[in-house]
């Protein structure tokens, strides 16, 4: 899902104008003696609340409150605006004081994780399309179980047809590891679409092939096909896992920022007036 497309242009134009206006307002001589820290602080808090609503919106998908792509655009635009307001509020990139610095670290961490997450979303969505197969993330365990069942069925049929257990023992000793669950995670997610997995099962089956009887060898083609199917599922699993799990950093960090921001608000409201 891309946040920069033709329909999102108005949002970005408004955001850029708002950011430019905020910078101009903050530097205006007319307001040089106005305490703008409170104003920028409350604007920033409002923006952070708005950004946090995005997570809640995903849980309320049944409500007609705008398309997910618009919400993503608003989330990214709001994040960019929050960065600008944060810079104006702090008046530097690295504030003074342990609590302020803790707040800044968390804020930057949230921004960084968000940027990385959106980058992953852009990059991995293209790779997922290139991977060629589609599968719902929650159905991957069932798919792996189904492939595994077909592999075991083929191995058993080969043993029954040939009267040899060479392929069966090889399955138990090595192939079962591959078909048990997703393997070669990082190679599948970030590398060459699970080439390491492909090399692994092809090398394994090619090696064992020399020791198989003719009847068993006839099943090798099926096993190679199942290995390839499993590799594609692994690629889907790895990429979709990354797309889901980066939020395991982003959302808790955002929650921590909100908590510390509320404390900061209380302290400032009590002591800085």
């Amino acid at each position, binding site marked *: 899902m891309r946040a920069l497309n033709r329909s999102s242009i108005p949002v970005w134009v408004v955001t850029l104008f708002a950011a430019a206006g905020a910078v101009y307002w903050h530097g205006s*001589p007319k307001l*040089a003696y106005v305490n703008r820290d409170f104003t920028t602080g409350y604007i920033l808090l409002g923006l952070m609340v708005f950004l946090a609503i995005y997570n809640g919106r995903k849980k309320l998908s049944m409500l007609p409150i705008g398309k997910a792509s618009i919400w993503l655009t608003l989330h990214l635009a709001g994040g960019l605006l929050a960065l600008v307001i944060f810079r104006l509020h702090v008046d530097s990139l690295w504030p003074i004081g342990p609590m302020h610095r803790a707040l800044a670290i968390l804020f930057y961490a949230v921004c960084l994780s968000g940027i990385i997450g959106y980058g992953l979303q852009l990059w991995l969505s293209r790779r997922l399309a290139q991977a060629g197969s589609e599968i719902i993330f*929650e159905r991957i365990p069932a798919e792996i179980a189904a492939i595994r069942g077909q592999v075991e069925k083929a191995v058993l049929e080969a043993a029954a047809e040939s009267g040899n257990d060479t392929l069966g023992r090889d399955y138990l000793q090595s192939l079962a590891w591959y078909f048990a669950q997703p393997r070669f995670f990082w190679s599948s997610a970030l590398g060459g679409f699970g080439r390491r997995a492909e090399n692994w099962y092809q090398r394994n089956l090619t090696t064992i092939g020399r020791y198989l009887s003719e009847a068993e060898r006839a099943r090798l083609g099926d096993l190679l096909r199942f290995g390839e199917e499993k590799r594609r599922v692994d690629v889907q699993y790895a990429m979709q896992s990354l797309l889901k799990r980066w939020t395991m950093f982003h959302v808790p960090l955002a929650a921590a920022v909100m908590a510390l921001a509320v404390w900061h608000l*209380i302290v400032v409201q009590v*002591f800085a007036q």
Partner: protein
Amino acid sequence: MSGGINAFRHDQSGYERPTLGWRCGRAAAWNAPCKRGPSAQGACGGQNTCAPIKGGEKWQCRRPAADGGPCTNGPGADGSCGLRRPPCVPRRTLSVWRGRLSVLAIGFVLALVAILAYKTDAISGAPTSLDPGPLSAPHSHFAGADPCSTCHTAFGKGTSGWWQAFWSPAALMPDKQVGDTAPHRLSAACTECHSFDGKEEHPHNQVFEKRADLGPTDCLMCHTEHKGRLAQITKLSQTQCQSCHTRVIKDFAVDHPQFAPKFPYDHLQAVTFDHANHVNKYFSQSSMQALVPPGGCVGCHIVGDGGRALQPAPFEKTCANCHADAIAKKDFVLFRWPEIDNNNIKSEEIAKACGASAVPPPPSDGKPAPAFSGVSSDPLNAMSAYLLDVPADSAADYEKQVQDLARDMMANGADPLVDAVGSHLSKAKKEQLFSGLDSEQVRQAACVWAGNQEYSQPGQTNVPGWRADDLDLRYTHPKHADPVLKAWIDAIAAAPLPSDADASDRFVRARRELLSFDGGPGMCTKCHAVSGQRGGPLTVSWQVELGKSPALTRFDHRPHLDLLGPEKTCTSCHKLADTVLSVENTGLKGIALDTCEECHAAGKVRDDCQTCHVYHQGHAFRKRMMQDAM
């Protein structure tokens, strides 16, 4: 992919609910999950393939079509599913773990805040959740059990104090600051120690009547703390200045308005010194070389102290070489026995007051006494006329009062004179005016003058001080900064103008004589400036007051002297005037803007507003600080 895995029909696939809290334990172990999935409470829902329903007398299998439709076993007699499986252990979904991590993060933050909130010992330097950062160096030494409460009134007041501060901060302001005197609670804390010449909430501590648009200010508009020990919390930006000063000054050399023509000598200098005349006319004479203080400008001005203005060296080290003798030559004549046409003082009166020896002897040749001829031919001097409050033009106008004064002086010495200076002066002041005056000598002189003779003072005649001699009572040989002479000049200069026209005229004459810069006693006003309204009291500036104005500017000679070097560079800025006393009484030209621009310009030496201008007037610390510290 395997058949049916991406199907989206109720009879072909299950319904994935990733937002629910639980997921199938079998799927979590990478086995085929059951279609029913866990319950909302996390119990395994896959022990039974279906939930049979009773149709009439029999239980009917409800296994979904996606699982193969009704099973051959069918439900048991008690309605239980005929295809039972061992239960799995459902696992939490990703969204639950994300929520848990979020709660954990919030909890961690709040716990950290709560733990560190109790560590409020700012002196130890330990981090606290209330610590907004180090104070600037000048404020970093706040001491006490609760140093934070020095400024933050809510500190140490517990939950109720926080609550009050959060919702109604004005309630915690010190009582004396409530209202329009301090719009900000922290500003009120600032002014507990800092004081200014004007009100702190006014821009530049003064009222600008033409700028009604200017609202009240508070300290935090410019000075924000907790920015670190090295933070310059007094530094202002050009933008801040221009929030009120609408003339945009981006470049001092280009945008700054020209200085006033007399700058910086736009007020009367306490000591009149014609620099141009002295340097060009006198100091260049070879005969004067031995008397001129060596070193050029620094021969007279003390550069060691530096600062806004360079204090001149004392009179004795500078001017005395040439001017000390001239001061000593100008006596102050308080009273002069004037020309008298008719002698009203009898010899018996003189004999009674002063003794028989004081009566002049009759002519020894037995001839009758000649007609009376006064010993003095001078008119009454201006000071005597003022003190006696009589016209000085004709003897007929004043001789009675003068002879009455002589009678009084014969009896009481100097007391009549002391009484004559006026009742508006205090006793101490009168004692200062007549300090050193010998009342007996005055009495003796009066006895002689009453006898129409000149008085001859015994002893030395060149001793500084009061003396009666010939027909005068005078203060002789004054020296620089003579206290008696200063007291007379101050008293007469500051005396109120009499309402009567004749008396006023006599007073002005006496004052003019006393303050005359060429003929006055001590010639004090030749150098010491006299200021005041015409017809009103006058003030003589005895002390050099440098750098008094303007209030919102500053200048430090020291870096300029260090940069340019002594002796030769003073006239780079302080140019001698071509005409006498061109700017006030200095003999110097005003300093033009381009003099400063030679160095202070973009790309050269700093040229921001604060280089020369200060915001506050008369910033000082309140006395209370000293009392507290003791």
